[in-house]
């Protein structure tokens, strides 16, 4: 794992590693808080059945007698209109949100990165074709296209993943292409060509590993945005089918009771907000630390 990290993140990992965690906290407290929030969300998601006070309610079993209980020691964040513990539901919802965010970005990378590498490496008509294709996908308003795709595929994790990924991958293609353009001019590419190595092998073995680092970092920081988009889709009723806990859906059903049972919509909303914000803050910090113009010191 460590070696994969080094291979793909390369210099960026080199720049970040070796900095003491405490020093990092003091120098960039916002990023440190972001890291803590992200860690907390991940732990919550992974260990939801163990952490959640009411795992069965988190999974969706209603307890009508407990309907609309305000936050208390018994129900940390209150209960919803079916009497389910909201804290447990949020932990279970974290699983869906994170899985969705990570899958969208991963799928976007799997499609977008190689296409960008191919466009940049070959240039000419191939480049033109791929980039115009990205233009076509970018021309649609992302949420509108996602709604259309999601409606036609039906409500499920996979259909939402596809719906959002359709508008997600072109960004990675656009990011990868200029990097591939510059790698193409490196002498080790000429060296590989002169050894008689096929262009596709050159792309897989030399181009993609050498452009993956920056794109991967950028992509990681966009998980927050992906979570937000997925939550938006489920807010308008295209999320996971009930009884699954889905942050966007929880906000949507809670908003009817916002003035009477404020906790119902507020806590899932905060979960979305904090998670997306944490990824964004982390992204900003990574940009700052890896940008030679703002990071100040270089070795």
């Amino acid at each position: 794992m460590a070696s994969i990290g080094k291979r793909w993140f390369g210099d960026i990992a080199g720049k970040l590693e070796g900095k003491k965690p405490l020093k990092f906290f003091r120098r960039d407290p916002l990023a440190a808080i972001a890291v803590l929030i992200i860690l907390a969300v991940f732990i919550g998601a992974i260990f939801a059945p163990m952490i959640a006070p009411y795992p069965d309610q988190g999974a969706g079993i209603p307890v009508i007698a407990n309907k609309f209980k305000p936050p208390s020691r018994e129900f940390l964040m209150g209960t919803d209109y079916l009497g389910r513990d909201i804290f447990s539901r949020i932990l279970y919802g974290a699983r869906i949100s994170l899985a969705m965010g990570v899958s969208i970005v991963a799928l976007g990378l799997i499609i977008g990165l190689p296409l960008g590498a191919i466009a940049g490496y070959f240039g000419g008509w191939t480049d033109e074709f791929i980039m115009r294709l990205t233009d076509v996908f970018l021309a649609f308003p992302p949420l509108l296209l996602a709604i259309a795709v999601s409606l036609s595929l039906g409500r499920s994790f996979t259909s939402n993943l596809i719906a959002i990924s359709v508008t997600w991958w072109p960004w990675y293609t656009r990011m990868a292409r200029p990097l591939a353009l510059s790698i193409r001019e490196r002498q080790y590419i000429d060296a590989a060509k002169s050894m008689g190595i096929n262009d596709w092998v050159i792309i897989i073995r030399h181009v993609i590993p050498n452009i993956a680092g920056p794109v991967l970092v950028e992509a990681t920081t966009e998980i927050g945005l992906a979570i937000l988009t997925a939550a938006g889709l489920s807010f308008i009723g295209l999320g996971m089918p009930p009884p699954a806990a889905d942050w966007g859906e929880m906000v949507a059903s809670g908003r009817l009771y916002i003035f009477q049972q404020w906790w119902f919509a507020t806590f899932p909303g905060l979960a979305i907000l904090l998670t997306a914000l944490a990824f964004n803050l982390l992204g900003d910090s990574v940009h700052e630390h890896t940008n030679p113009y703002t990071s100040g010191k270089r070795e």
Partner: protein
Amino acid sequence: MDKPLIRIKNLTVDYASGGFLKGVTRNVRALNNVSLDIAPGITFGVVGESGCGKTTLGRALLRLVEPTEGEIVFDGQDWLSMNQKTLRGKRRDMQIIFQNPTSSLDPRMKTFGLIAEPLRAQTDLRGEPLKARVAELLIMVDLQEDQMDRRPRELSGGQAQRVAIARSLALSPKFLVLDEPTSSLDVSVQAQIINLLIRLQKEKGLTYLFISHDLPVVQYISQWLAVMYLGEIVELSPSDFIFRNALHPYTQALLSATPQPVPGSKRKRIVLEGNVPSPANPPSGCTFHTRCPLVFERCPKEKPKLVQVSEEHWAACHLVGEGQFPSS
């Protein structure tokens, strides 16, 4: 000369400059009508200032750029008409070593992977035999086997260049293009690399095209020499002839600029005025006339041909053509 291993005839390479948005596309002629034969087993030196097309010549030979015109016959085969697939298989006979090993070696690969790469692509060697072959190649270039796990940035410049040499020898080529293989290295390491290259040439019967701007090194290693200026060959002969009796004023100026090992030796320094003109807009007539100390009326008007002066000596200068040898 024996039957040449490589015969280059009227090789011309144009680079397109400007784009369709910038209006007219203008071609930069990086290599203009270059012809030369390289006999097997020799080192053929190519010298000239930066931008004179010597690197383009090497790249065109490897078909890393496609020539606009001309002919290359390599090892009895028409090299330029081969399709990519046939060419990929034949590439094992012609390899290149670049100037800077830190950029010609993929920074993410280890020594083993770097040297094994051509073997994996072109041979069936895998597993233990592959490892043995890589080890053998490492020893051939005076590196230790334990350097297999290093990445290029963990190697010194000289070691990295040795890895590049081992990689280019992996497929047992017949012909090697050496594109300034020592100019990015420390002086002390340069000599080691040059001697290694000479030793390998003797052991393997290799033929080299040695591209350089370092005249003493070229004199040391090469048997034949072509002097290039703005994409053209201005003088061509066995290197002894040129170092003893350079005919072209440009060659004379180049020679006079090299430091003399004997203090107080009386060679007059010819200082060339101005810069190399842009190849995008070359001067009329003889391209060297803007800087030539011996320029006369005919030079800007008419382009001198590469004329045969003696059996193995060609030069492109009106003075030579008229039989008035410029004195050095």
